[in-house]
């Protein structure tokens, strides 16, 4: 049936119809889209919390919410953005859609497990959001003990939600590793593997190895909370700093779960829009694994003023410096790829350029924080807030939105509106820098993070920051409008509007249910062979 229907435009979107067919689908493309919808929903929810936070801090002495509400908002903003948006954003949505197609496979290795992962993610999100109505949580997304043990409300539910969502992450990672290992098309050797897949492979390894540590930590926390067993609370004989070690043993590698896939997306976009091979393919692929390896041995840099030993600080500061080396290699290679290219400024490329600008600032300020003495003054101030927003939003979200534009024609078969996309990008890049750059200054001047009200001396920077957040809102609304409108009524895109060489573009747009029809694609060259007719 599928074969005859294919001639009449059968694709994964109309292969089966109805809500039930989506809810029970094991098609990686549909699951990717369901993740995408969920991630975007939570991104807007977390974004609304951020906007209220910014309004509250716009001018000292004019709060819009009371302190307890503020503390819950900042907790929810952080927890939602980290656990429900940035961690799954690229791997689970874009990755799910693109990974099997880039491999020339019909699906991931374990399609049913893939669907299960999605429902586990939803269950975790539901638990976390239930807590909103059951007293909320005011611990910050880091759940530091003993505060998190003593405060009331729905803390346990939020923690349980993060615990459950973690399994989704583990299972997706496992699925991706097996898929990349076993389901590569004939001729797709390791040396021809697209860089996004190298990045997703490295990410998956971290997901599988590090997430269980978070799970154990959260279980211990729930145990202590419910049964009053002394683990982290000194009042019960526990050690509060132990929690910080456990927490960051996961959450630092998690930072690379968040950024590596975005680096993979950028590595795909830049060669396509420069019409040139990626510069330093092996170095970029290796750098992904270098970053993944170092990720596991630098968690202590979150604890420089926690009371951990001088020797530990020495070692962690030294090791942290090594993060900058592979990261630098990637950034230099992307810029090098543009050299003597023929550059097109379509929206994906704009986001890639935006990524490089913001991520460079994020990376350089990371060196400040890795430097022991400097960190002592800057840690827990707005400098840290600015730094990780530059990396996580300027990096991951830029890569995510860039990737959304890049694969939009593949996913929908339509073209988005390039003019709207450009203005949205301009609004986002101005808004982002206006929101977060002043926070570096507020931070070096001493403004601490997680403050419901600031001293008046920090007002200028906070007002600028709040105004910037409105530009961000405007930009992201334009992106959403553009995506929705173009998916409905955009012009037909053709199968490969960017003339890209990776396998997913060699299929139809939108792809058929089984990705490539009855034939299995064969790979004869690496995916960055931009020469001759390919330029």
């Amino acid at each position, binding site marked *: 049936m599928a074969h005859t229907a294919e001639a009449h435009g059968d694709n994964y979107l109309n292969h089966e119809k109805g809500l039930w067919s989506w809810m029970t689908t094991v098609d990686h493309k549909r699951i990717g889209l369901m993740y995408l919808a969920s991630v975007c929903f939570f991104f807007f929810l977390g974004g609304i919390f951020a906007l209220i936070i910014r309004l509250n801090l716009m001018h000292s002495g004019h709060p819009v919410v009371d302190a307890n509400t503020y503390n819950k908002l900042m907790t929810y903003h952080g927890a939602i953005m980290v656990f429900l948006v940035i961690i799954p954003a690229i791997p689970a949505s874009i990755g799910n859609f693109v990974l099997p197609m880039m491999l020339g496979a019909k699906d991931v290795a374990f399609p049913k497990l893939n669907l299960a992962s999605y429902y586990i993610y939803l269950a975790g999100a539901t638990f976390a959001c239930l807590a909103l109505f059951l007293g909320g949580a005011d611990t910050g997304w880091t759940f530091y003990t003993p505060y998190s043990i003593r405060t009331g409300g729905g803390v346990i539910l939020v923690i349980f939600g993060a615990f459950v969502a973690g399994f989704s992450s583990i299972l997706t990672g496992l699925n991706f590793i097996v898929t990349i290992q076993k389901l590569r098309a004939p001729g797709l050797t390791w040396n021809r593997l697209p860089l996004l897949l190298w990045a997703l492979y490295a990410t998956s390894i971290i997901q599988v190895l590090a997430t269980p540590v978070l799970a154990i930590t959260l279980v211990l926390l729930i145990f202590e909370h419910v049964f009053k067993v002394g683990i982290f609370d000194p009042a019960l004989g526990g050690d509060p700093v132990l929690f910080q070690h456990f927490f960051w043993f996961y959450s630092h590698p998690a930072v690379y779960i968040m950024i590596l896939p975005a680096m993979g997306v950028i590595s795909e976009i830049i060669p396509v829009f420069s019409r040139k091979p990626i510069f330093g393919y092996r170095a970029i692929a290796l750098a992904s694994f270098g970053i993944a390896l170092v990720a596991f041995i630098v968690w202590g840099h979150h604890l420089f003023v926690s009371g951990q030993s001088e020797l530990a600080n020495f070692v962690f500061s030294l090791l942290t410096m090594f993060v900058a080396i592979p990261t630098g290699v990637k950034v230099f290679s992307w810029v090098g790829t543009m050299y003597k290219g023929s*550059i097109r400024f379509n929206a994906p490329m704009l986001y890639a350029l935006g990524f490089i600008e913001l991520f460079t600032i994020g990376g350089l300020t990371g060196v400040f924080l890795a430097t022991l003495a400097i960190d002592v003054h800057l840690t827990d101030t707005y400098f840290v807030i600015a730094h990780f927003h530059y990396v996580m939003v300027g990096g991951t979200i830029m890569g995510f939105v860039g990737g959304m534009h890049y694969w939009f024609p593949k996913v929908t078969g339509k073209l988005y509106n390039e003019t709207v996309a450009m203005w949205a990008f301009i609004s986002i890049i101005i808004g982002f820098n206006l929101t977060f750059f002043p926070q570096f200054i507020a931070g070096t001047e*001493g403004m*601490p993070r997680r403050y419901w009200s600031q001293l008046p001396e920090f007002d200028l920077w906070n007002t600028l920051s709040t105004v910037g957040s409105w530009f961000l809102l405007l930009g992201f609304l334009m992106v959403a409008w553009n995506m929705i409108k173009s998916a409905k009524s955009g012009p037909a895109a053709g199968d490969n509007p960017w003339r890209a060489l990776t396998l997913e573009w060699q299929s139809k747009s939108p792809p058929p249910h089984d990705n490539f029809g009855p034939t299995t694609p064969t790979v004869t060259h690496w995916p960055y062979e931009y020469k001759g007719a390919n330029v």
Partner: protein
Amino acid sequence: MNSVMSKAYGKAAWGLPLQGSDVAVTWDHLYWFLFWLSVFFFILVVGGMIYFAIVYRKKEGRKTKYIVDHHALEAFWTIIPTILLMAIFGWGWSVYKKQIHAPTDAMEIRVIGKQWLWTFQYDDGRTEASKLVVPLGKPIKLIMTSQDVIHSFFIPNFRVKQDVVPGMYTSVWFEPKVAGEHQVFCTEYCGTSHSGMLAKVEVLEPEQYELWKAGKPYQVTGVKTPSSDLLAAAQSSARLANAKLPLPDQGAKLVQAKGCTACHSIDGSAKIGPSYKGIFGHEQELLDGTKVTVDENYIRESIQKPQAKVVKGFNPVMPPYTKDMIGEEDMNAIVAYIKSLN
């Protein structure tokens, strides 16, 4: 010996707090090195990117060059950053050692953090709340612990910060070279009034310090934090004995200064503790079900021994305020103020 302020101190370079100590001066050198190095690399990368984007923009008939890699270049941009990063690490470590190792002759003061107040205990038994009084030019070592959750003691002007952890002692030190007031922040999230958990270091000229030690009126000269007005109540009202203010007004300033209003509202709304409004002379039901009428003695007892009679519906979380922390004159002013809120 150091009472004369050196010209190197007291300045606030753009974007940085003022330099209140030698460590701050040393710290700033490293900071500006990193700052300009970052500017250099930013221009190199982003400038290069913009340059390429303009020069190599799409043009009809433009042929791109098939470049796959360049080993010498890649080795260069791996090795040079590695050397730079190791140098930065070493510099950071050497400044860090100065930051955390107090001289052996440092004067020790004990610090207790509690939600949401800093208290300071001196060797001679005197205590201060929200205000750390120290002599100019003497190294000071703070030995700190927390009564409840984790806090963090941060003095931007001295470029030092240390978490204050329940169940253990941590320490931080500084040698103030600038007389006046220096802001203290709590920088580890600790709940409702985390952003209100402020304090000030008062660095006094030696003769003023002796006056403070003797319990006499003294003057703070020198720098003020830009937020002096906001904290004026907190700091100057600690000794209101000579103030020519009506007693309830003195009390109003004191409850601000001592951080009481973080937990007790004055408008009838319940916060962490009961509101002050409309309680005086009225009966309150206690945790054990008995009732008590709020009078002068009840208020006094509830300040000095907060756990003795806890009002129903609230948790017994308030720290006790000893006679050293709230003297008799101040106590009278606070009682008068609460009485006035009926």
